[in-house]
């Protein structure tokens, strides 16, 4: 017998034929025999059941409900919960902070010429270290030591996502770190000082004013090295940072008039001083504005002189291009005072309506749907622009998005990315989690690159990017790995958590579905879960099997729920 794709995959190949990326738009199926065959199957689709607003919120402004979360938000009301989350208070996060304080990560490397071998479990000691201490670390002979702060922040990020009370802040930290993506593998100085980027540049501003966040990033060690501005100097400047500032950090490429190249007067609105977008020459000119913005890293700057070697951001006038410039139809005078050219560029892009739209749309994409409603984006843009000088600009914009009608009316228009999936699983089952390198490695295998996504775009935020065969396979294999005692990253006893009142197969399934999903699954999925638990016995009787077998079955039932289509949606 010959094997063909159509015979092999049966009906699904024909259904798969219509290439449609909309999550729930039915594909157009060409009229073939196989297609008719496909229509004989019952087809599942995007979730029919609409979860409550609380469940939706806990899946999108938090990393999934923990036991008791749904009831808590129901009691206090969604608006009160959102306001609480928008005003985080670290003194009220004892459990999470204690876990970070007591966590350890193994570190091991062989001796080098100027350092001894190390093989120990070490606390997360770099998270709140100062620049001078971390800058010294960037000169350590061992790559493992230089890279250690990245792993420590990874461990803390897992712990915060799972245990912190301030879930929305964690969601926003992930958002901004992705928006202002830096690959920690690009430079040891980025890796060694990584806590300063995450907790010094991003965290204080994640609900604040965008202009402040933009400057903190522009002057960070991480961005200065990642996009090469630290070596950019007069004649010709290095355009890497300026390019991504426009294209990724602020206006976005939807506002790039690449066909105009250098014809700035042809950009709509330019003659009136408010150009609708940017052109290549804006990038070239902005790059000149940022020459001299660098890091005091002891580099040789000619004529027998060196910059200080402290790791601090500095302006070195000797490298600055001091001639006149034109950026976004705005004239910059020659010989501006130190830093002013760069500040003027940041002011222009931070206030630009294109930036408002680009970022508000990304926020809506993160918090609501892959293709958010235009009405929602417009509401967010209006608040963003009205508060462009307000210290709570981002906070007010977020409140508008989350408390919008569109937010609570939208479900199943996004899937969880691998990190969200694993964290939601660990939260739902009440696991005791001790992050380790195996956990980090596993996550990386899914394609989710925490702190080492290679390109400055950051990771994509649409379902199609997270539904490759590899990602799904690695997601499922990671769930399985979490059950293994040798994996060592999590411990839990699922059978012991089932209340005494849940004795039949149906009651056990209902308990775990309610706890993990917070809403009823469709009939087809429910039937599969019931028959998995009952294994041929009546579903309204206690499941039959040896003690070990029942423990295994319950473990695998819970894993199966985490593998259902329902658990993948956000």
């Amino acid at each position, binding site marked *: 017998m010959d094997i063909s794709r159509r015979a092999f995959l049966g009906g699904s190949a024909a259904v798969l034929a219509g290439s449609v990326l909309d999550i729930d738009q039915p594909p157009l199926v060409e009229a073939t025999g196989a297609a008719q065959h496909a229509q004989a199957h019952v087809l599942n689709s995007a979730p029919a059941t609409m979860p409550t607003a609380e469940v939706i919120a806990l899946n999108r402004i938090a990393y999934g409900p923990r036991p008791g979360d749904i009831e808590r938000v129901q009691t206090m009301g969604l608006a009160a919960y959102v306001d609480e989350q928008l005003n985080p208070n670290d003194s009220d996060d004892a459990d999470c902070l204690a876990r970070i304080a007591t966590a350890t990560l193994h570190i091991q490397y062989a001796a080098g010429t100027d350092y001894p071998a190390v093989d120990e479990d070490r606390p997360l000691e770099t998270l709140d270290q100062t620049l001078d201490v971390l800058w010294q670390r960037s000169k350590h002979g061992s790559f493992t030591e230089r890279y250690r702060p990245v792993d420590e922040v990874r461990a803390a990020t897992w712990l915060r996502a799972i245990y912190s009370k301030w879930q929305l802040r964690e969601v926003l930290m992930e958002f901004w770190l992705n928006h202002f993506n830096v690959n920690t593998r690009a430079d040891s100085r980025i890796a060694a000082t990584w806590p300063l980027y995450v907790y010094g540049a991003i965290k204080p501003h994640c609900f604040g004013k965008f202009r402040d966040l933009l400057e903190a990033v522009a002057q960070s060690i991480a961005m200065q090295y990642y996009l090469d501005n630290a070596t950019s100097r007069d004649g010709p400047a290095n355009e890497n940072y300026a390019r991504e500032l426009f294209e990724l950090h602020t206006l976005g490429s939807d506002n790039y008039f*690449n066909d105009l190249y250098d014809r700035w007067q042809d950009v709509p609105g330019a003659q009136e001083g408010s150009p609708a977008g940017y052109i290549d020459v804006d990038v070239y000119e902005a790059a000149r504005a940022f020459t001299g913005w660098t890091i005091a890293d002891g580099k040789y700057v000619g004529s027998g002189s060196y910059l200080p070697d402290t790791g601090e951001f500095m302006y070195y006038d000797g490298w600055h291009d001091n001639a006149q410039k034109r950026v976004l139809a705005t004239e910059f005078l020659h010989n501006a005072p130190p830093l002013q050219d760069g500040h003027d560029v940041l002011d222009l892009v931070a206030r630009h309506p294109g930036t408002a739209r680009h970022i508000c749309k990304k926020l809506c994409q993160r918090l609501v749907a892959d293709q958010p409603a235009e009405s929602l984006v417009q509401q967010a843009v209006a608040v963003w622009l009205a508060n462009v000088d307000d210290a709570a600009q981002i906070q007010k914009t977020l409140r508008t998005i989350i408390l919008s009608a569109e937010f609570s009316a939208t479900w199943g228009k996004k899937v969880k990315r691998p990190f969200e999936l694993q964290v939601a699983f660990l939260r739902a089952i009440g696991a005791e989690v001790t992050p380790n390198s195996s956990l980090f490695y596993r996550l990386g295998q899914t394609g989710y690159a925490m702190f080492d996504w290679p390109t400055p775009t950051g990771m994509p935020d649409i379902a199609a990017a997270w539904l490759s065969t590899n990602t799904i396979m690695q997601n499922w294999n990671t769930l399985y790995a979490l059950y293994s005692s040798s994996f060592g990253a999590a411990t839990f006893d699922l059978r012991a958590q089932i209340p005494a009142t849940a004795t039949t197969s149906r009651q056990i399934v209902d308990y775990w579905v309610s706890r993990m999903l917070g809403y009823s699954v469709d009939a087809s999925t429910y039937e599969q879960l019931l028959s998995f638990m009952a294994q041929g016995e009546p579903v309204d009787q206690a499941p039959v099997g040896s003690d070990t077998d029942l423990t295994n079955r319950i473990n695998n039932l819970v894993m199966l729920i985490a593998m259902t289509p329902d658990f993948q949606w956000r």
Partner: protein
Amino acid sequence: MAGGRIGGLVFAAPHQPTTRDTLVVLFLRGGCDGLTLVAPTDDADYVAARGALRVENTGTNAGLLLSNPLANIDFRLHPKASALKELYDSQALAIVHACGLTNGTRSHFDAMDYMERGTPEDKNTSTGWLTRHLRAINPDAVLPAMAASASMPASLLGSVDAVATTSVPGFKLNGHYKYGPLQQDALRVMYNGNSILHRAGKSTLDTIAAVQAQNPANPYVPDVEYPTDSYVRGLVDSLKAIAQMIKLDLGLEIATVDFGGWDTHESQNGVISNMIDGLSRALGAFYNDLAAYHSRLTVVVMSEFGRRLKANRSDGTDHGHGNVALVLGGNVNGGRMYGTWPGLANEQLDNRVDLAVTTDYRTILSEILVRRLQNPKLGYVFPQIASYNPLGIVQGNDLPIDYSAGLYSTYLPHLQK
């Protein structure tokens, strides 16, 4: 005979391979500096603009002189590209210069979107050019396409024929000995749906089962040695996965592989030397590993754009325009350069700064589509293309070209951007 049982369907031996080539698309992400990979070493403008950042034509570090160059210029491969030089001299490798995207974007991500979606006027097209090619030929194989990467490139956007994996033996689901298979049975029912999520889950279950039924060797044992240097490990792993998948004879027609790290804004010489060394040796090993498949193997190497003619003060180069592309295979008219060299004098440059594009990248791909992949539906794969002008890079028959966009415009909704 390999047999197995999946989803209630019994299957037997793999499908006979088609007469179409397997096309491997290797994308150099970040904007490879084509003026370093294949350098016009005696061009006075090149020498003046590049200074120390150039390939030389004399001395111990001279580039590797190419026969049959364009415009009688002293074109040389970078000195680290000796494996590519061997392939060129054996007439398996052709080089196209001053080619690329006609759209003038200097954005990496826009340029890749335009190129890989195959629509240089529209970066939001919801399917990739390879996706539409697969739709046009409607392959009748279990596993017609793979992305040798963790996720899918834009050229395969919207494809449900393609799988993503970087390891063939690792392409399997782990689970409890008793409950793992039962979970997979349950999931096959749960994922029998029409949303993008359901289709992806079902495809994952089915293709993994199909590959595992072939009992792929673990680890893969190639017929030649691949380079082991750390800077090329990712590329080598991906190429090995493709080679192993081709040898499983599951009917692979399209494979994509990415090699990133070409965005050499600073300290270019040291970085690009390793990149070219890795690319050259890995590609050479891959080609030799598949010696038995040369008669139906075509590899194309491309990048989103070239780099600025004039170096910057960070000893690097910024985003440019025209670039080089490589075509490798058993039916390639190799050993010569193709294209039209536009020159590097100021007025010959694109916008007075970058190498101009004189050959649309779609011209190269169209020729491969028609002559090697037997797909004349160019209007469907490249909806904005107006003519078919093969350069003679590959052997094969020309077919009557279908320029109609077909269903392209009706059933491919645009993603909201």
